[in-house]
């Protein structure tokens, strides 16, 4: 696959839009499934990934074979996501709320449904912690690959991951306990969503 990506990059450097189009088609889902859990909503994820490809296109001539095409794309995407998160860092505490609101707005606008998912686990994590979990668990990258993208040493990543792992384990335990005690509240919430779905 990497060989094919490099071939497309070389062809795109020579002016082939078809090659660039193939490259976008082949790689966009990896970037979107990284950006979405990082940013918490579809619109921001798509905006960032679009910007990744535009930056890549502008700097095609600077691409060398020292890093893989995918690592190059991840690096751009990582930086853009981190910048976006930093910009809204003041709103981080409200992210769970924004998350739901954005999802509802998108449904209303595009009449499309967002699947249920467990990304709410990431709410409350610091930007770098969130990045580490998304890259490790959702993207399946190795510590070495993450180190190449973020510039953080493998040893530091391992330590950080262990701390996040404990934090998330604790969070899961607490959620299970809350669910056991607050079952009626959750049923009501689900009814609310169902009513909303019927009205659009």
């Amino acid at each position, binding site marked *: 696959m990497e060989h094919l990506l490099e071939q497309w990059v070389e062809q795109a450097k*020579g002016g082939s839009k078809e090659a660039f*189009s193939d490259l976008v088609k082949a790689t966009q889902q990896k970037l*979107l*499934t990284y950006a979405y859990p990082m940013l918490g909503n579809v619109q921001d994820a798509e905006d960032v990934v679009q910007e990744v490809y535009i930056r890549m296109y502008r700097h095609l001539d600077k691409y060398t074979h020292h890093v893989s095409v995918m690592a190059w794309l991840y690096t751009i995407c990582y930086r853009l996501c981190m910048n976006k998160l930093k910009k809204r860092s003041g709103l981080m505490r409200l992210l769970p709320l924004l998350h739901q609101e954005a999802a509802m707005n998108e449904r209303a606008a595009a009449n499309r449904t967002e699947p249920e998912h467990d990304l709410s686990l990431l709410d409350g994590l610091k930007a770098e912690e969130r990045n580490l*979990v998304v890259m490790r668990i959702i993207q399946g990258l190795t510590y070495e690959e993450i180190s190449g993208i973020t510039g953080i040493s493998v040893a530091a990543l391992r330590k950080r991951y262990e701390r996040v792992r404990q934090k998330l384990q604790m969070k899961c335990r607490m959620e299970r306990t809350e669910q056991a005690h607050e079952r009626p509240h959750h049923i009501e919430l689900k009814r609310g969503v169902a009513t909303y779905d019927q009205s659009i």
Partner: protein
Amino acid sequence: MTNRYEGSWEYKLASATMPPMDVHDRVMESVARLQRKEDRSTFLSIRRRAWMVPLLATCILIGSGFAYLSGVWLKNDAGDTVLKIRDYNSANLPSPVSDSEWESYISLAQPGETVLVYKAEDNPQKIIGSYTVPSVVQDYEDLKSIVGENFALPASVPEPFTFVEGHGIGFLHPSPELLDDIYAEGEASGQTVTRVITAQQAETAGVTLNLELAEESYVASILGGEHADTWYTDLAQHTDTAVVSILGTEGYIAKVDGSQELFWKHGHGAGSLYYHLSTTDLGEQGKQALISLLEALAAGAVAGQ
């Protein structure tokens, strides 16, 4: 059957379903817009400035890179294209101002001054030519001190050549208002418009060395290669063409209009250097001398990478 992983937070995240997302069409629309914008800015860039290299009568333009035409692609040992030699085409035409016309316009200016020329006739690309009259020096050490270390000149004159004279190649960035004024005047009158600019300091864009060997003349010009990735020329006028490997990068040699010329480039992007050498010696000896001169001139750049 369940595994020990199932139910853990890792499992929840790894199996999370993502919403349908697709940016392909948006990206390609943006790329198309970007391309149209670059085409416009390239056109403006061509209209507003042409790099006139003295005695070489070449015009280096920023290549669009999106139209494949006949030409020579020169690569380095890593397989990367560093320089393209391509035929003139409708988007990249020869300079509308001939060498003899330039000679007369240059006579209007003093060393350090810049002549801007806009020829309204036969100038479909609306090129405004720019030429900064150089201060010629006869001492190689003086030349090195004028151009500094930007062009990686060797410590001494390459042997067995004799240094005749040299100068820095200046490039002025006139104000857009001045360029628009010249352009408007030319369009209104249909005549050639010239302006001599005295006050502004030109940027040193390159260096030219005039050398001699066995009573034959050798001219070497070195320019910053950031925007010189394509050299447009009339390939039909080239004879005895050859691609040769010099210091690990391909160079192009051809006989053009009574001289033997060598084109070569080190690196690409910022910090790269473009070399154009020519000699009146049309024989094999002249060809070998061009290659050895280039090796001597570029050795510093290659060593410094």
